[in-house]
């Protein structure tokens, strides 16, 4: 059968090659920070737009307690919503795969649900459920379930004829077919979708906080912006980015650990 040219992750080789892969982005970020620092020092960048890196860094050390409080809230919202959304998306995909009747009935609505700009409804939802963690988690979940749902539904229903015939000849039950071939072969698509959902979760949480909360990094960004506390604002923005990266990194790590599913699953 055909070799798996596509679908294979770039492999990190031994020491020198690994340095080769890591060095360029590190050089870039160091250069950018130096440029930033230099332009802030010479006044090329006005302080009210972007304070110096030292000032932002100082914010992290002086106001770490405040930052931590807000960051923890945002993390709860984003991670909770992400987990809930991913579970709902996966559950929906399984259900619609196993019950063709439900698929015919619900699939158009699942697609249409994508068109609902859920963030716009935040004020309404806050009126209904009050401010706080729960409504934001629900909004994040709604905003992030879709990529997982669609990718898994596609993956579970993209059938490799040879594998299906093999399991058919072995007289496998539909459930065995689901666990033993449909799910494993849809994992690469699932991980791609999880990465999309992960960054979406943080963005949704931050924006929802503008309206629906008085804690969280999104709230902090808005409030410190209004009071021209630019260093605080940037510290909050960087914190949010770091958390998003951490979640993405975790997903990539799991994907790597499951390499035999996620990198080889295309074809042998």
């Amino acid at each position, binding site marked *: *059968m055909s*070799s798996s040219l596509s679908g294979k992750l770039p492999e990190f080789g031994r020491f020198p090659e690994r340095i080769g892969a890591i060095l360029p982005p590190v050089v870039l970020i160091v250069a950018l920070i130096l440029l930033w620092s230099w332009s802030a020092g010479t006044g090329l960048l006005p302080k009210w737009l972007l304070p110096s890196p030292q000032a932002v860094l100082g914010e992290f050390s002086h106001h770490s307690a405040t930052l931590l409080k807000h960051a923890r809230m945002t993390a709860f919202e984003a991670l909770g919503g992400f987990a809930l959304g991913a579970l709902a998306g996966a559950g929906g995909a399984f259900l619609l795969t196993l019950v063709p009747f439900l698929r015919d009935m619900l699939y158009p609505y699942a697609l249409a649900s994508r068109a609902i700009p859920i963030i716009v409804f935040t004020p309404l939802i806050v009126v209904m459920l009050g401010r706080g963690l729960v409504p934001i988690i629900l909004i994040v979940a709604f905003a992030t379930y879709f990529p997982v749902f669609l990718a898994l539904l596609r993956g579970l229903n993209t059938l490799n004829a040879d594998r299906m*015939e093999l399991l058919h*000849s*072995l*007289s496998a039950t539909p459930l065995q077919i689901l666990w*033993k071939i449909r799910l494993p072969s849809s994992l690469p698509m699932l991980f791609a979708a999880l990465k999309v959902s992960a960054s979406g979760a943080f963005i949704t949480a931050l924006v929802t906080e503008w309206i629906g909360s008085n804690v969280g990094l999104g709230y902090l960004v808005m409030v410190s912006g209004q009071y021209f506390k630019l260093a605080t604002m940037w510290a909050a923005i960087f914190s949010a980015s770091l958390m998003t990266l951490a979640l993405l990194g975790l997903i990539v790590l799991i994907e790597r650990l499951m390499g035999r*599913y996620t990198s*080889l699953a*295309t074809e042998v």
Partner: protein
Amino acid sequence: MRGPALSLAFEGRRPWHWMGLDIVMLNAFPDEATRVRAATLPAGLYADGIDVVFRRGSHSVQALKDCSLDIPRGSWATLIGASGCGKSTLLRVFADIVKPTAGTALLHGVSPAEARANRIYALVQQGSTMLPWRSIIDNVALGLEISGLPKSTRYARAEEALALVGLKGFEKSLPSELSGGMRQRAAIARALTLRPRFLLMDEPFGALDEITRDRLHFELLRILEETGATLLLVTHSISEAVILSDKVIVMTPRPGRISEIIEVDFGRGRTPDLRGDPRFVQYEAQLRRALHQPA
């Protein structure tokens, strides 16, 4: 071939030297009605007037036309013919993958669907499909896993089968780390773990080197003799057909039909010395003539 229902049980007396277990345990029909019916019908592979028409929208392809054959229980048959003449399709009719448009196919007197449900055949696909995320041993044990055998039995049998096809030491490898020929052998091993009454094989030795192929030919014949299993095997090789057959079924294309059935009278206990037999060359020549005959 007709026989009483008990003949199934008597088959269990065959010594399973190569795996040391009883054929009856796995292969007796669990379903009583099927068992009773099976006893009064041809016990081997039987086909009568099989037509297969594939429809795609408005146009249709007649893949098989009026194919009939009767392969007695425990005997060996190969399907040979030009590419596209319907060999795989005929095999897949017996495997309950393709439903015939007309005609009857029976395995041990039961329909392909019942044969599949009762797990009395094992199929080796043309592409020797492996699940790429499973190690070789897990791929080989897949059939037993699906039939719900306990883990220790599964692995014990899978290891034996792997040793048999010369893949000892590759248990933990992934399919992508093996050559095409090694994957074919793993697919054969997977079929053997099932201890099938019928072995349906679609070009199982296609990607193998001459030496391994020779060894596996006689290994397969030995297993077939010990288990009394019936063989239907698709091949493109004339010598392979002669070595592995009691009957060579020659097919011609457009539409696919059986043009000739050649009996090969080498009996049992075949050895590699077969190739030196003057009759071997005669059979080869006869088969070549049949293949070159205009349809």
